[in-house]
């Protein structure tokens, strides 16, 4: 079962320069706030896709829900 800390580390490893804070009450529903220079110039949809792509195949499985807020520093 993934943990909030594991998601945080995976997001920060996958997106260069990203700072993520991830919360989860139960290790299946997650809420993430991701700040990354790599989001610069991208639409919100593209920014969210970058994060979703890290968890392809897990959304709906081990990760039931991932609520996202993305931001350029």
């Amino acid at each position: 079962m993934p943990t909030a800390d594991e998601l945080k580390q995976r997001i920060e490893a996958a997106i260069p320069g990203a700072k993520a804070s991830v919360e989860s009450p139960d290790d299946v529903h997650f809420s993430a706030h991701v700040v990354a220079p790599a989001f610069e110039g991208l639409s919100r949809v593209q920014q969210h896709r970058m994060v979703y792509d890290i968890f392809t195949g897990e959304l709906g499985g081990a990760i039931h829900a991932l609520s996202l807020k993305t931001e350029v520093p």
Partner: protein
Amino acid sequence: MSENPLRDAIKQAIDENDVILFMKGTPDQPMCGFSARTAQTLQALNTPFAAVDVLPDPRIRQELSALSNWPTIPQLFVKGELIGGADIVAELYASGELYDILGLERPADAPAEPQADPSPAPLGIENRLG
């Protein structure tokens, strides 16, 4: 045409409706908190929109996500373009950008109070993707 009539039908629905929301349940009877919030936002703006319930057949969601490259529900499209899911729609509403996207006049006051802080939604098991 193509060998995927369902995907064609979804694409056609997106093309033919200026504002279309794919959701779990219906605006009057949403089956998921995220879908409910997004439908309520559109209703609050008093803008007409088409709504498609993805629940009756799991293939609808498969084909929609394959088409949009977006894994979760709800999904809002305006003039054929994916605007986003529940989190993005809430952010755009809070910032007032949603009015521009929908071609609506921004209200004189700042956008509605309840969503002024677009913090991530409370999580609910209803939006399980399965």
